[in-house]
C-alpha cells in the first residue's frame, strides 16, 4: 500500500506570503494528524481530523493556520501570512479508526520542510 504522502517536500517562502501544505493519508485511514517540529524543539501536535471533522485543534498556534480535510480524504494546512517562526518541518500522519486508539499503528509522512525568510 502507498504510504502517507506529503507535498511539497520543501518550501521556501518570504515572510508575509501564503503557503499550502498537502497531505494524502493512506487510503481508508479516517484519522489524520498534523504535527510540527520547529528547529531544535520537540515535535508538537497541531490537530486531529476524524474523517472531515476536526476532532482536536488545540495545538494550532494561532489563526494564521487553517487546516481542512474536505471529503475526508486529503488534508491541507495553509499558513497565511507566514512568519519567520513558522519555519520547521510539518508532519502528517494517519491511522485507521478502531475501537481502541492504539490498535492501529500511526503512519507518518516524510514531512514538508518549510523555510520562511
Amino acid at each position, binding site marked *: 500500500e502507498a504510504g502517507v504522502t506529503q507535498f511539497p517536500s520543501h518550501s521556501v517562502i518570504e515572510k508575509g506570503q501564503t503557503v499550502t501544505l498537502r497531505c494524502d493519508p493512506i487510503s481508508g485511514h479516517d*484519522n489524520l494528524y498534523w504535527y510540527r517540529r520547529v528547529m*531544535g524543539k*520537540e*515535535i508538537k501536535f497541531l490537530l*486531529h481530523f476524524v474523517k472531515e471533522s476536526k*476532532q482536536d485543534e488545540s495545538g494550532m498556534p494561532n489563526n494564521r493556520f487553517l487546516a481542512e480535510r474536505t471529503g475526508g480524504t486529503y488534508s491541507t494546512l495553509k499558513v497565511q501570512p507566514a512568519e519567520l517562526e513558522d519555519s520547521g518541518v510539518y508532519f502528517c500522519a494517519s491511522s485507521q479508526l478502531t475501537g481502541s486508539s*492504539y490498535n492501529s*499503528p500511526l503512519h*507518518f509522512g*516524510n514531512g514538508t520542510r518549510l523555510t520562511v525568510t
Partner: protein
Amino acid sequence: AQSVTQLDSQVPVFEEAPVELRCNYSSSVSVYLFWYVQYPNQGLQLLLKYLSGSTLVKGINGFEAEFNKSQTSFHLRKPSVHISDTAEYFCASGGSNYKLTFGKGTLLTVNP
C-alpha cells in the same frame, strides 16, 4: 499536562557496542509510551510501544525498552548497534488517541 524528557541530545557509539537512550515522562494519568525512529529524509517509524502488561517491550531491529513506573522512565536499549542504526530517536507519550507528546529527540551516531 504530559511531558517527555530525553536526557541526551546526541549519543555517539562505536559499532557493535551496546546503547541506551534515556527517556523520562511525567503524567498524572494512565500513560502510553512509544519510541519512534527517523532516518534521514524519512518520516517517523514506530520502534516499539508500551500500552500495558509486561514492562519489557521488544521492538523492531533488535531494540527493546523497559517501562519503569517508579522511576517514570522508558529507556531504549540495544545490545549491539550497527552503522545502519544511525538516526534520530524520539520518545513519546499519549493519553488518548495519537495526540502524542514528544521528547526533543536523541541523535544516535554509530561510528565504525
